């Protein structure tokens, strides 16, 4: 072996070692950051199993003993209404919103992506513009409409608008998706005598399934987490959703209810986390392609 190749080898080894150390450092930073990000949630989960005296004196999220009494105590509110009601109500609102969004947004998306009607570009621009419309400016007249219809304290104000494609984000998501499908499929179907509606239901809908799944997931998460419109329209406890149910812990701020409060907040996040675990890839792709807020 020549001296030059030996020095070449040691240089290569040194370079490799530097790279290794850099890798270790990077992982240390990332893991530390990840811990900071997730620590508040761990503290919440831990607190849900702790007696009140332990919650505000212990930084360690791991409880001394696993006691699920907080869950039992938190489930039923002082008024006798339980989280069973709130979960059912949240599920109803979510299901309604999802069905509405799937139907109405796919119809609109198909028209924008495939049909060459007059003023299409203008309406498409209007649709994109509605994404920027702050809800402050529409909320009062919307409330008046639902109030006049006597729909306050029902789920209708939370569900019915979804059947009219008000979430432009999803229209945009589906338009992007439909544009990626080869037109030849529809042309072949047209030759076989398939009409517009047939093409939509038989060709487009099955092919945009990933976009429909993304729409379902995001509608679920947003509706589950929503607070403002539920606060606005629902006002008796039997109609309360999870968000409104949780708020009760703040109103009746009896100092003794910290444990149960943490138990119920923890539990309320479980459905969203489960959806995240199962549909992680769809969620991430959905955000990356349209910039949806998670």
């Amino acid at each position, binding site marked *: 072996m020549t001296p030059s190749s030996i020095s070449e080898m040691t240089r290569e080894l040194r370079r490799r070692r530097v790279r290794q150390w850099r890798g270790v450092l990077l992982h240390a930073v990332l893991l530390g950051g990840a811990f900071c990000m997730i620590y508040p949630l761990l503290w919440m989960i831990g607190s849900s199993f702790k007696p009140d005296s332990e919650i*505000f004196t212990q930084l360690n999220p791991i409880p001394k003993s696993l006691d699920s009494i907080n869950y039992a105590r938190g489930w039923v509110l002082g008024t006798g209404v339980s989280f069973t009601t709130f979960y059912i109500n949240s599920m109803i609102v979510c299901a309604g919103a999802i069905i509405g969004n799937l139907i109405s947004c796919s119809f609109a998306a198909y028209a924008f992506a495939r049909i060459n009607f*007059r003023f299409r570009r203008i309406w498409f621009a209007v649709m994109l513009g509605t994404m920027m419309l702050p809800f402050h400016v529409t909320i009062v007249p919307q409330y008046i409409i639902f109030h006049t219809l006597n729909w306050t304290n029902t789920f209708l104000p939370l569900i019915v608008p979804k059947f009219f494609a008000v979430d432009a984000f999803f229209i945009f998501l589906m338009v992007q998706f439909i544009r990626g499908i080869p037109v030849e499929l529809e042309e072949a179907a047209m030759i076989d005598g398939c009409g517009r509606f047939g093409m939509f239901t038989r060709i487009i809908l099955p092919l945009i399934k990933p976009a429909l799944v993304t729409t379902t997931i995001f509608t679920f998460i947003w509706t589950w987490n929503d607070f403002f419109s539920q606060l606005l329209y629902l006002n008796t406890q039997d109609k309360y959703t999870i968000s409104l149910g949780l708020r009760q812990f703040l109103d009746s701020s009896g100092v003794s209810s910290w444990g149960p409060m943490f138990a119920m907040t923890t539990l309320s996040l479980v459905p969203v986390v489960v959806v995240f675990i199962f549909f992680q890839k769809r969620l991430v792709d959905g955000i990356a392609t349209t910039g949806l807020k998670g």
Partner: protein
Amino acid sequence: MGDNTAGYLFLLPWFTGLSLFMAGPTLVSLYLSFTDYNLLDTPNWIATQNYIKLITQDRRYHTALRVTLTYVMVAAPVNLAFALGLAMLLNAKIAGLSFYRAVYYIPSLLGGSVAVSILWRQIFGLGGIVSQILALFGIEGASWVSTPSHALWTLIILHVWQFGSPMVIFLAGLKQVPAELYEASSIDGAGPWRQFWVITLPMLTPVIFFNLVLQIINSFQAFTPAFIVSGGTGGPLDSTLFYTLYVYMQGFGNFRMGYASAMGWILLVIIGVVTGLAFLSSRYWVHYDDAK
């Protein structure tokens, strides 16, 4: 069936929604903003009185504006800086990418919920995590959420904590940067730091711009954290009186619907101007690849 008929038929639900729930209400609220209206009596035309009162007299409104602008101006850029930084670190083809991405993204997913806002109130409250940690360093713990000078900052931290979704968008953007650019500049002797400034950042400006506009629009409309953390009051001493919260209080607490509509319209104009400025400025700093 012609294309026009088919197109408008498929768009029928959307058109209905547009007129009933978006465009229609926007116009109606413009009308209401010039009236005195309490939901029960007929709207009473008072011309520009709502606006004059808001702009010249309503101290709480000015506070709400200041609080919201501080929140938007601080929380949105800091959030994006974290998102970009982490995206850069994660883009380096490291092991465990999907694990890290998931962990950093989870706060974005849960952050908008009432549950997390309640949690935040406890973290920064008396005996919460923050005051316990500060106590370790001998700093006497106080309740951050009930100190007027600190309360808004707890909400800003809550927003920054949710940098996961812009991070995912940045990650997707970083994948689009052609590898040849890095190879070519490596041959020219550019180090990673220089590559970041000369290649990555310019190539990423469209994504940064997109994220910035999204952040501005979203953070102007924040409601849940301020409502929950302050217990619906915007306190202490109005230090967390978000714009939305004040609209809610006036419109649905005091049923001054005309007044609330005027506030809504001013916000629409503000958001329009801010995003308009962002679009105008984008000509000077957003790099679009002309070659493509």
